[in-house]
Protein backbone atom coordinates (compact mmCIF):
# COMPACT_ATOMS: atom_id res chain seq x y z
CA UNK A 1 0.00 0.00 0.00
CA UNK A 2 2.81 2.33 0.94
CA UNK A 3 4.73 1.51 -2.23
CA UNK A 4 1.69 2.21 -4.35
CA UNK A 5 1.27 5.57 -2.76
CA UNK A 6 4.89 6.47 -3.44
CA UNK A 7 4.60 5.37 -7.05
CA UNK A 8 1.39 7.26 -7.37
CA UNK A 9 2.80 10.53 -6.16
CA UNK A 10 6.13 10.35 -7.87
CA UNK A 11 6.06 12.27 -11.16
CA UNK A 12 8.69 10.02 -12.70
CA UNK A 13 6.53 6.93 -12.17
CA UNK A 14 3.17 8.52 -12.91
CA UNK A 15 3.80 9.48 -16.51
CA UNK A 16 5.17 12.52 -18.33
CA UNK A 17 4.51 16.03 -17.06
CA UNK A 18 4.93 19.39 -18.74
CA UNK A 19 6.34 20.86 -15.55
CA UNK A 20 9.36 18.63 -15.29
CA UNK A 21 9.99 17.69 -18.88
CA UNK A 22 9.27 20.98 -20.65
CA UNK A 23 9.45 23.95 -18.25
CA UNK A 24 9.56 26.44 -21.15
CA UNK A 25 6.15 25.31 -22.39
CA UNK A 26 4.72 25.82 -18.90
CA UNK A 27 6.13 29.34 -18.77
CA UNK A 28 4.75 30.34 -22.15
CA UNK A 29 1.30 28.92 -21.51
CA UNK A 30 0.97 31.03 -18.39
CA UNK A 31 2.61 34.15 -19.70
CA UNK A 32 0.62 37.27 -18.77
CA UNK A 33 0.36 38.54 -22.32
CA UNK A 34 -1.63 35.49 -23.27
CA UNK A 35 -4.69 37.34 -21.92
CA UNK A 36 -4.29 40.01 -24.54
CA UNK A 37 -6.51 39.34 -27.52
CA UNK A 38 -4.10 41.10 -29.90
CA UNK A 39 -1.07 39.08 -28.93
CA UNK A 40 -1.98 35.43 -28.87
CA UNK A 41 1.37 34.37 -30.39
CA UNK A 42 -0.08 31.40 -32.16
CA UNK A 43 -1.78 29.94 -29.10
CA UNK A 44 -5.49 29.64 -28.57
CA UNK A 45 -6.38 31.97 -25.70
CA UNK A 46 -9.34 29.92 -24.61
CA UNK A 47 -7.35 26.75 -24.68
CA UNK A 48 -4.73 28.22 -22.37
CA UNK A 49 -7.42 28.76 -19.74
CA UNK A 50 -6.98 32.53 -19.72
CA UNK A 51 -9.98 34.88 -19.71
CA UNK A 52 -10.43 37.73 -22.19
CA UNK A 53 -9.61 41.16 -20.76
CA UNK A 54 -13.20 42.37 -20.34
CA UNK A 55 -14.25 39.14 -18.65
CA UNK A 56 -11.28 39.20 -16.31
CA UNK A 57 -12.17 42.76 -15.21
CA UNK A 58 -15.75 41.70 -14.44
CA UNK A 59 -14.42 38.69 -12.56
CA UNK A 60 -12.15 40.97 -10.53
CA UNK A 61 -15.08 43.21 -9.62
CA UNK A 62 -17.14 40.20 -8.60
CA UNK A 63 -14.31 38.92 -6.45
CA UNK A 64 -13.95 42.33 -4.79
CA UNK A 65 -17.58 42.40 -3.53
CA UNK A 66 -18.19 43.80 -0.08
CA UNK A 67 -20.25 41.88 2.48
CA UNK A 68 -23.30 44.08 1.76
CA UNK A 69 -22.97 43.44 -1.96
CA UNK A 70 -22.65 39.71 -1.36
CA UNK A 71 -25.88 39.77 0.68
CA UNK A 72 -27.70 41.83 -1.96
CA UNK A 73 -26.63 39.55 -4.78
CA UNK A 74 -27.37 36.34 -2.87
CA UNK A 75 -30.12 34.00 -4.01
CA UNK A 76 -31.78 34.06 -0.58
CA UNK A 77 -32.13 37.84 -0.63
CA UNK A 78 -33.68 37.67 -4.11
CA UNK A 79 -36.19 35.06 -2.93
CA UNK A 80 -37.04 37.19 0.11
CA UNK A 81 -37.79 40.13 -2.21
CA UNK A 82 -40.05 37.94 -4.36
CA UNK A 83 -41.80 36.80 -1.19
CA UNK A 84 -42.22 40.38 0.12
CA UNK A 85 -43.72 41.48 -3.19
CA UNK A 86 -46.03 38.51 -3.77
CA UNK A 87 -47.05 37.81 -0.15
CA UNK A 88 -46.57 40.93 2.02
CA UNK A 89 -48.79 39.81 4.93
CA UNK A 90 -47.18 36.35 5.29
CA UNK A 91 -43.79 38.08 4.87
CA UNK A 92 -44.71 40.42 7.72
CA UNK A 93 -45.74 37.37 9.78
CA UNK A 94 -42.40 35.75 8.89
CA UNK A 95 -40.50 38.79 10.17
CA UNK A 96 -42.68 38.67 13.29
CA UNK A 97 -41.84 34.99 13.67
CA UNK A 98 -38.12 35.75 13.56
CA UNK A 99 -38.23 38.90 15.71
CA UNK A 100 -41.06 38.17 18.15
CA UNK A 101 -40.82 34.40 18.07
CA UNK A 102 -37.07 33.99 18.30
CA UNK A 103 -35.20 37.22 19.07
CA UNK A 104 -37.66 38.52 21.68
CA UNK A 105 -37.74 35.31 23.77
CA UNK A 106 -33.94 35.22 23.62
CA UNK A 107 -33.80 38.82 24.85
CA UNK A 108 -36.40 38.17 27.56
CA UNK A 109 -34.48 35.13 28.82
CA UNK A 110 -31.18 37.04 28.71
CA UNK A 111 -32.50 39.80 30.99
CA UNK A 112 -31.34 39.51 34.61
CA UNK A 113 -33.67 38.00 37.26
CA UNK A 114 -34.97 40.23 40.01
CA UNK A 115 -36.36 37.41 42.11
CA UNK A 116 -37.39 33.76 41.78
CA UNK A 117 -40.84 34.57 40.46
CA UNK A 118 -39.60 36.75 37.62
CA UNK A 119 -37.81 33.75 36.07
CA UNK A 120 -41.14 31.93 35.77
CA UNK A 121 -42.74 35.08 34.35
CA UNK A 122 -39.94 35.35 31.82
CA UNK A 123 -40.45 31.75 30.72
CA UNK A 124 -44.16 32.36 30.31
CA UNK A 125 -43.56 35.59 28.36
CA UNK A 126 -41.05 33.84 26.09
CA UNK A 127 -43.45 30.93 25.45
CA UNK A 128 -46.25 33.41 24.66
CA UNK A 129 -44.01 35.25 22.19
CA UNK A 130 -43.03 32.01 20.41
CA UNK A 131 -46.65 30.80 20.30
CA UNK A 132 -48.01 34.06 18.91
CA UNK A 133 -45.20 34.23 16.32
CA UNK A 134 -45.82 30.69 15.07
CA UNK A 135 -49.63 30.98 15.08
CA UNK A 136 -49.50 34.37 13.35
CA UNK A 137 -47.26 33.00 10.60
CA UNK A 138 -49.32 29.83 9.98
CA UNK A 139 -52.65 31.68 10.08
CA UNK A 140 -51.51 34.54 7.82
CA UNK A 141 -49.87 32.21 5.30
CA UNK A 142 -52.89 29.89 5.12
CA UNK A 143 -55.53 32.61 4.89
CA UNK A 144 -53.69 34.97 2.54
CA UNK A 145 -52.44 32.36 0.03
CA UNK A 146 -55.56 32.37 -2.25
CA UNK A 147 -55.87 36.17 -1.99
CA UNK A 148 -52.24 36.71 -2.96
CA UNK A 149 -52.60 34.28 -5.86
CA UNK A 150 -55.72 36.15 -6.99
CA UNK A 151 -53.81 39.45 -6.97
CA UNK A 152 -51.03 37.81 -8.99
CA UNK A 153 -53.61 36.81 -11.61
CA UNK A 154 -54.86 40.41 -11.79
CA UNK A 155 -51.31 41.74 -12.19
CA UNK A 156 -50.66 39.27 -15.02
CA UNK A 157 -53.90 40.05 -16.85
CA UNK A 158 -55.66 43.19 -15.55
CA UNK A 159 -58.11 43.41 -18.46
CA UNK A 160 -59.56 39.97 -17.64
CA UNK A 161 -60.52 40.82 -14.06
CA UNK A 162 -60.91 44.60 -13.77
CA UNK A 163 -63.96 46.59 -14.85
CA UNK A 164 -64.55 49.97 -16.41
CA UNK A 165 -64.26 51.69 -13.04
CA UNK A 166 -60.57 50.73 -12.92
CA UNK A 167 -60.05 51.84 -16.51
CA UNK A 168 -61.01 55.40 -15.50
CA UNK A 169 -58.02 55.86 -13.20
CA UNK A 170 -55.55 53.28 -14.58
CA UNK A 171 -56.06 54.02 -18.27
CA UNK A 172 -55.91 51.27 -20.87
CA UNK A 173 -56.00 47.95 -19.01
CA UNK A 174 -54.33 46.11 -21.90
CA UNK A 175 -51.37 48.53 -21.96
CA UNK A 176 -47.94 47.02 -21.32
CA UNK A 177 -46.29 48.04 -18.05
CA UNK A 178 -49.57 49.00 -16.38
CA UNK A 179 -48.56 47.36 -13.11
CA UNK A 180 -45.53 49.65 -12.71
CA UNK A 181 -47.52 52.91 -12.66
CA UNK A 182 -47.66 54.82 -9.36
CA UNK A 183 -51.44 54.47 -9.07
CA UNK A 184 -51.40 50.73 -9.69
CA UNK A 185 -48.53 50.24 -7.23
CA UNK A 186 -50.41 51.99 -4.42
CA UNK A 187 -53.70 50.21 -5.16
CA UNK A 188 -51.81 46.90 -5.31
CA UNK A 189 -50.34 47.61 -1.85
CA UNK A 190 -53.80 48.44 -0.52
CA UNK A 191 -55.27 45.22 -1.91
CA UNK A 192 -52.42 43.02 -0.72
CA UNK A 193 -51.88 44.57 2.72
CA UNK A 194 -55.38 45.86 3.48
CA UNK A 195 -56.81 42.43 4.40
CA UNK A 196 -54.42 42.44 7.38
CA UNK A 197 -56.72 45.01 9.01
CA UNK A 198 -59.61 42.52 8.75
CA UNK A 199 -57.79 39.25 9.43
CA UNK A 200 -55.85 40.84 12.30
CA UNK A 201 -58.93 40.58 14.56
CA UNK A 202 -59.68 36.82 14.14
CA UNK A 203 -55.94 36.15 14.15
CA UNK A 204 -55.55 37.79 17.56
CA UNK A 205 -58.55 35.84 18.91
CA UNK A 206 -57.18 32.53 17.57
CA UNK A 207 -53.73 33.39 18.93
CA UNK A 208 -55.15 34.06 22.40
CA UNK A 209 -57.31 30.90 22.26
CA UNK A 210 -54.47 28.62 21.12
CA UNK A 211 -51.75 29.92 23.43
CA UNK A 212 -52.78 27.79 26.49
CA UNK A 213 -52.78 24.40 24.63
CA UNK A 214 -49.48 25.30 22.90
CA UNK A 215 -48.00 26.28 26.25
CA UNK A 216 -49.21 23.00 27.73
CA UNK A 217 -48.32 20.53 24.98
CA UNK A 218 -45.28 22.19 23.38
CA UNK A 219 -43.57 23.97 26.26
CA UNK A 220 -44.90 21.83 29.10
CA UNK A 221 -46.27 24.86 30.95
CA UNK A 222 -49.79 24.37 32.29
CA UNK A 223 -51.20 27.73 33.44
CA UNK A 224 -54.37 26.10 34.91
CA UNK A 225 -52.26 23.71 36.96
CA UNK A 226 -50.19 26.61 38.24
CA UNK A 227 -53.33 28.51 39.23
CA UNK A 228 -54.65 25.38 41.03
CA UNK A 229 -51.37 24.96 42.89
CA UNK A 230 -51.42 28.61 43.89
CA UNK A 231 -54.96 28.17 45.23
CA UNK A 232 -53.90 25.04 47.13
CA UNK A 233 -51.03 27.02 48.63
CA UNK A 234 -53.43 29.71 49.76
CA UNK A 235 -55.68 27.04 51.33
CA UNK A 236 -52.65 25.39 52.97
CA UNK A 237 -51.51 28.75 54.31
CA UNK A 238 -54.98 29.38 55.72
CA UNK A 239 -55.10 25.94 57.43
CA UNK A 240 -51.70 26.64 58.98
CA UNK A 241 -53.06 29.84 60.41
CA UNK A 242 -56.02 28.11 62.09
CA UNK A 243 -55.56 28.29 65.90
CA UNK A 244 -56.57 25.07 67.59
CA UNK A 245 -57.04 25.48 71.31
CA UNK A 246 -54.81 23.32 73.56
CA UNK A 247 -52.92 22.05 70.53
CA UNK A 248 -49.21 21.46 70.66
CA UNK A 249 -47.10 24.24 69.14
CA UNK A 250 -46.46 23.65 65.43
CA UNK A 251 -43.15 22.03 64.63
CA UNK A 252 -40.59 23.96 62.56
CA UNK A 253 -40.12 20.85 60.38
CA UNK A 254 -43.84 20.74 59.44
CA UNK A 255 -43.92 24.47 58.84
CA UNK A 256 -41.16 24.09 56.27
CA UNK A 257 -43.19 21.57 54.21
CA UNK A 258 -45.54 23.40 51.89
CA UNK A 259 -46.93 22.36 48.52
CA UNK A 260 -46.70 24.23 45.27
CA UNK A 261 -43.95 25.55 43.11
CA UNK A 262 -41.32 27.58 44.86
Amino acid at each position, binding site marked *: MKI*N*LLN*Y*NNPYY*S*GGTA*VTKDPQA*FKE*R*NYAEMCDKKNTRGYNVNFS*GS*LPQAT*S*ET*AAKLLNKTL*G*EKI*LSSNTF*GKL*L*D*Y*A*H*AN*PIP*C*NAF*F*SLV*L*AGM*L*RPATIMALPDKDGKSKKDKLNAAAHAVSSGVIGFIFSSAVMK*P*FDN*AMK*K*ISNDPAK*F*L*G*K*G*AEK*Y*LGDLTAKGLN*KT*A*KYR*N*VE*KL*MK*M*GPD*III*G*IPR*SFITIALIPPILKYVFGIDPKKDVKKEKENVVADNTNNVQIPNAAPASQAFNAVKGGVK
Partner: protein
Amino acid sequence: MQITLNTQKYNQNYYAPQKNNNKLKSQPAFTAAADAIIDAGQAMADAAVSKSKFMQPLVDAYDKTTDWIAKNIFGKLMSSSAVASFAEKTKDSKYIANHIMTLGAATGTGMYIYKTLNLPEKQMDKDRKKVLALNHALTFGVSTAGAYLVDGSLFNKWRKVTQKYAELYTGDRELGKKIEDINKTLKAQGKNKIDLIDYAADYLHDQKLVNRLKGMDVGKTLLIVTLIYRYLVPVAVTPIANKLGDKILAHKKEQDEKLEKP
Protein backbone atom coordinates in the same frame (compact mmCIF):
# COMPACT_ATOMS: atom_id res chain seq x y z
CA MET B 1 -6.03 44.22 -14.15
CA GLN B 2 -5.61 40.85 -15.76
CA ILE B 3 -6.32 37.52 -14.17
CA THR B 4 -4.99 34.33 -15.61
CA LEU B 5 -6.71 31.18 -14.53
CA ASN B 6 -4.71 28.11 -15.27
CA THR B 7 -7.18 25.35 -15.83
CA GLN B 8 -4.59 22.99 -17.24
CA LYS B 9 -3.74 20.21 -14.82
CA TYR B 10 -0.25 19.03 -15.52
CA ASN B 11 -0.14 16.17 -13.13
CA GLN B 12 -3.38 15.82 -11.28
CA ASN B 13 -2.26 12.61 -9.62
CA TYR B 14 0.83 14.22 -8.13
CA TYR B 15 -0.91 16.19 -5.34
CA ALA B 16 -4.02 14.06 -4.99
CA PRO B 17 -3.79 11.27 -2.43
CA GLN B 18 -4.89 7.85 -3.58
CA LYS B 19 -7.78 7.86 -1.12
CA ASN B 20 -9.43 10.91 -2.74
CA ASN B 21 -8.89 9.50 -6.18
CA ASN B 22 -10.80 6.39 -5.22
CA LYS B 23 -13.62 8.60 -4.01
CA LEU B 24 -13.72 10.39 -7.34
CA LYS B 25 -13.84 7.08 -9.14
CA SER B 26 -16.79 5.88 -7.16
CA GLN B 27 -18.65 9.22 -7.35
CA PRO B 28 -20.18 9.06 -10.83
CA ALA B 29 -22.01 5.82 -10.09
CA PHE B 30 -23.52 7.31 -6.92
CA THR B 31 -24.37 10.63 -8.61
CA ALA B 32 -26.07 8.77 -11.42
CA ALA B 33 -28.14 6.81 -8.92
CA ALA B 34 -28.99 9.95 -6.94
CA ASP B 35 -29.95 11.82 -10.11
CA ALA B 36 -32.17 8.95 -11.13
CA ILE B 37 -33.90 9.00 -7.73
CA ILE B 38 -34.35 12.80 -7.84
CA ASP B 39 -35.70 12.63 -11.41
CA ALA B 40 -38.07 9.85 -10.48
CA GLY B 41 -39.22 11.78 -7.39
CA GLN B 42 -39.72 14.94 -9.43
CA ALA B 43 -41.67 13.02 -12.06
CA MET B 44 -43.85 11.48 -9.37
CA ALA B 45 -44.48 14.88 -7.75
CA ASP B 46 -45.34 16.42 -11.14
CA ALA B 47 -47.64 13.54 -11.93
CA ALA B 48 -49.26 13.81 -8.50
CA VAL B 49 -50.02 17.49 -9.03
CA SER B 50 -50.89 17.51 -12.71
CA LYS B 51 -52.41 14.09 -13.42
CA SER B 52 -53.46 12.62 -10.09
CA LYS B 53 -57.17 11.89 -9.99
CA PHE B 54 -57.17 12.75 -6.31
CA MET B 55 -55.22 16.03 -6.56
CA GLN B 56 -56.57 17.38 -9.83
CA PRO B 57 -60.07 18.29 -8.55
CA LEU B 58 -58.44 20.10 -5.61
CA VAL B 59 -56.07 21.99 -7.92
CA ASP B 60 -59.01 22.93 -10.18
CA ALA B 61 -61.13 24.01 -7.20
CA TYR B 62 -58.28 26.17 -5.86
CA ASP B 63 -57.79 27.72 -9.30
CA LYS B 64 -61.50 28.51 -9.57
CA THR B 65 -61.48 29.99 -6.06
CA THR B 66 -58.60 32.34 -6.86
CA ASP B 67 -60.34 33.30 -10.12
CA TRP B 68 -63.52 34.04 -8.19
CA ILE B 69 -61.61 36.15 -5.62
CA ALA B 70 -59.83 38.03 -8.41
CA LYS B 71 -63.06 38.73 -10.27
CA ASN B 72 -65.57 39.28 -7.46
CA ILE B 73 -63.53 40.67 -4.57
CA PHE B 74 -60.40 42.42 -5.86
CA GLY B 75 -61.85 43.09 -9.32
CA LYS B 76 -64.93 44.81 -7.91
CA LEU B 77 -62.99 46.64 -5.20
CA MET B 78 -60.38 47.92 -7.67
CA SER B 79 -63.13 49.06 -10.03
CA SER B 80 -65.01 50.92 -7.28
CA SER B 81 -65.14 54.70 -7.02
CA ALA B 82 -63.67 54.60 -3.48
CA VAL B 83 -60.48 52.91 -4.70
CA ALA B 84 -60.38 55.25 -7.72
CA SER B 85 -60.46 58.20 -5.33
CA PHE B 86 -57.78 56.53 -3.15
CA ALA B 87 -55.56 56.05 -6.22
CA GLU B 88 -55.93 59.68 -7.27
CA LYS B 89 -55.25 61.08 -3.81
CA THR B 90 -52.27 58.85 -3.00
CA LYS B 91 -50.52 58.79 -6.37
CA ASP B 92 -47.56 60.81 -4.99
CA SER B 93 -47.48 59.22 -1.53
CA LYS B 94 -44.46 57.10 -0.63
CA TYR B 95 -45.82 55.85 2.71
CA ILE B 96 -48.89 53.84 1.67
CA ALA B 97 -47.54 50.62 3.20
CA ASN B 98 -46.88 52.47 6.51
CA HIS B 99 -50.41 53.95 6.53
CA ILE B 100 -52.00 50.53 5.93
CA MET B 101 -49.90 48.86 8.61
CA THR B 102 -50.64 51.68 11.08
CA LEU B 103 -54.35 51.26 10.38
CA GLY B 104 -54.04 47.51 11.01
CA ALA B 105 -52.12 48.12 14.26
CA ALA B 106 -54.70 50.72 15.36
CA THR B 107 -57.52 48.21 14.82
CA GLY B 108 -55.64 45.54 16.78
CA THR B 109 -54.76 47.93 19.61
CA GLY B 110 -58.34 49.21 19.70
CA MET B 111 -59.60 45.64 20.07
CA TYR B 112 -57.13 44.90 22.87
CA ILE B 113 -58.11 48.12 24.72
CA TYR B 114 -61.81 47.32 24.31
CA LYS B 115 -61.29 43.75 25.58
CA THR B 116 -59.17 44.92 28.51
CA LEU B 117 -61.65 47.58 29.63
CA ASN B 118 -64.52 45.06 29.39
CA LEU B 119 -62.82 42.37 31.46
CA PRO B 120 -64.90 41.17 34.44
CA GLU B 121 -64.05 42.76 37.78
CA LYS B 122 -63.06 39.33 39.14
CA GLN B 123 -60.19 39.03 36.68
CA MET B 124 -58.83 42.54 37.04
CA ASP B 125 -59.70 45.57 39.14
CA LYS B 126 -60.81 48.83 37.53
CA ASP B 127 -57.57 50.76 38.04
CA ARG B 128 -55.40 47.93 36.71
CA LYS B 129 -57.59 47.76 33.59
CA LYS B 130 -57.07 51.47 32.97
CA VAL B 131 -53.32 51.13 33.42
CA LEU B 132 -53.20 48.19 31.00
CA ALA B 133 -55.26 50.10 28.43
CA LEU B 134 -52.86 53.03 28.85
CA ASN B 135 -49.98 50.60 28.27
CA HIS B 136 -51.57 49.44 25.00
CA ALA B 137 -52.17 53.01 23.81
CA LEU B 138 -48.68 54.17 24.79
CA THR B 139 -47.04 51.20 23.06
CA PHE B 140 -49.05 51.88 19.89
CA GLY B 141 -48.25 55.61 19.93
CA VAL B 142 -44.51 55.15 20.45
CA SER B 143 -44.34 52.33 17.88
CA THR B 144 -46.17 54.32 15.21
CA ALA B 145 -44.10 57.45 15.74
CA GLY B 146 -40.90 55.36 15.73
CA ALA B 147 -41.87 53.47 12.56
CA TYR B 148 -42.59 56.67 10.61
CA LEU B 149 -39.44 58.35 11.93
CA VAL B 150 -37.10 55.46 11.07
CA ASP B 151 -38.75 54.78 7.71
CA GLY B 152 -38.55 58.46 6.76
CA SER B 153 -34.91 58.81 7.82
CA LEU B 154 -33.91 55.71 5.84
CA PHE B 155 -35.75 56.78 2.67
CA ASN B 156 -32.73 58.14 0.77
CA LYS B 157 -30.33 55.50 2.09
CA TRP B 158 -32.67 52.71 1.09
CA ARG B 159 -33.02 54.22 -2.40
CA LYS B 160 -29.24 53.92 -2.76
CA VAL B 161 -29.38 50.31 -1.52
CA THR B 162 -32.14 49.58 -4.05
CA GLN B 163 -30.03 51.09 -6.82
CA LYS B 164 -27.06 49.00 -5.70
CA TYR B 165 -29.26 45.91 -5.80
CA ALA B 166 -30.40 46.73 -9.35
CA GLU B 167 -26.78 47.30 -10.41
CA LEU B 168 -25.75 43.93 -8.99
CA TYR B 169 -28.79 42.20 -10.49
CA THR B 170 -28.16 43.58 -13.98
CA GLY B 171 -24.36 43.56 -13.69
CA ASP B 172 -24.42 47.17 -14.92
CA ARG B 173 -22.54 49.51 -12.56
CA GLU B 174 -23.53 52.53 -14.67
CA LEU B 175 -27.27 51.97 -14.16
CA GLY B 176 -27.79 55.04 -11.96
CA LYS B 177 -25.94 57.25 -14.41
CA LYS B 178 -27.98 55.90 -17.32
CA ILE B 179 -31.26 56.72 -15.54
CA GLU B 180 -29.96 60.21 -14.73
CA ASP B 181 -29.10 60.76 -18.40
CA ILE B 182 -32.55 59.55 -19.49
CA ASN B 183 -34.18 61.85 -16.94
CA LYS B 184 -32.18 64.84 -18.23
CA THR B 185 -33.43 64.12 -21.76
CA LEU B 186 -37.00 63.64 -20.53
CA LYS B 187 -36.84 66.88 -18.54
CA ALA B 188 -35.65 68.76 -21.63
CA GLN B 189 -38.62 67.31 -23.51
CA GLY B 190 -40.97 68.36 -20.70
CA LYS B 191 -41.83 64.77 -19.74
CA ASN B 192 -42.02 63.09 -16.32
CA LYS B 193 -38.93 61.54 -14.79
CA ILE B 194 -38.53 57.79 -14.51
CA ASP B 195 -37.40 55.74 -11.53
CA LEU B 196 -35.69 52.37 -11.23
CA ILE B 197 -38.93 50.41 -11.61
CA ASP B 198 -39.85 52.35 -14.77
CA TYR B 199 -36.38 51.70 -16.17
CA ALA B 200 -36.60 47.98 -15.39
CA ALA B 201 -40.03 47.75 -17.03
CA ASP B 202 -39.63 50.05 -20.05
CA TYR B 203 -35.95 49.74 -20.92
CA LEU B 204 -34.91 46.33 -19.61
CA HIS B 205 -38.35 44.65 -19.98
CA ASP B 206 -37.54 42.54 -16.93
CA GLN B 207 -40.72 41.80 -14.95
CA LYS B 208 -38.77 39.77 -12.35
CA LEU B 209 -36.63 42.82 -11.56
CA VAL B 210 -39.74 45.03 -11.42
CA ASN B 211 -41.29 42.68 -8.85
CA ARG B 212 -38.08 42.51 -6.83
CA LEU B 213 -37.73 46.30 -6.76
CA LYS B 214 -41.31 46.52 -5.53
CA GLY B 215 -40.36 43.88 -2.95
CA MET B 216 -37.43 46.08 -1.81
CA ASP B 217 -39.87 48.91 -1.15
CA VAL B 218 -42.48 46.84 0.70
CA GLY B 219 -39.92 44.63 2.45
CA LYS B 220 -38.15 47.63 4.01
CA THR B 221 -41.38 48.97 5.49
CA LEU B 222 -42.41 45.53 6.73
CA LEU B 223 -39.05 44.97 8.40
CA ILE B 224 -38.92 48.40 10.06
CA VAL B 225 -42.53 48.27 11.29
CA THR B 226 -42.20 44.69 12.55
CA LEU B 227 -38.87 45.43 14.22
CA ILE B 228 -40.34 48.39 16.08
CA TYR B 229 -43.84 47.04 16.82
CA ARG B 230 -42.90 43.47 17.66
CA TYR B 231 -39.41 43.72 19.12
CA LEU B 232 -37.95 47.10 20.12
CA VAL B 233 -41.03 48.66 21.71
CA PRO B 234 -42.26 45.57 23.58
CA VAL B 235 -38.76 44.99 24.96
CA ALA B 236 -37.89 48.64 25.70
CA VAL B 237 -41.18 50.47 26.30
CA THR B 238 -43.24 47.86 28.17
CA PRO B 239 -41.06 47.96 31.33
CA ILE B 240 -41.24 51.79 31.25
CA ALA B 241 -45.01 51.68 30.77
CA ASN B 242 -45.31 49.13 33.60
CA LYS B 243 -43.27 51.37 35.96
CA LEU B 244 -45.41 54.34 34.98
CA GLY B 245 -48.53 52.27 35.65
CA ASP B 246 -47.21 51.14 39.06
CA LYS B 247 -46.47 54.75 40.02
CA ILE B 248 -49.97 55.83 39.00
CA LEU B 249 -51.46 52.97 41.05
CA ALA B 250 -49.27 53.76 44.09
CA HIS B 251 -50.22 57.44 43.89
CA LYS B 252 -53.92 56.54 43.70
CA LYS B 253 -53.56 54.17 46.64
CA GLU B 254 -51.98 56.94 48.72
CA GLN B 255 -54.79 59.31 47.85
CA ASP B 256 -57.41 56.68 48.77
CA GLU B 257 -55.70 56.06 52.13
CA LYS B 258 -55.64 59.79 52.83
CA LEU B 259 -59.34 60.03 52.07
CA GLU B 260 -60.12 57.05 54.32
CA LYS B 261 -58.09 58.31 57.36
CA PRO B 262 -60.08 61.43 58.29
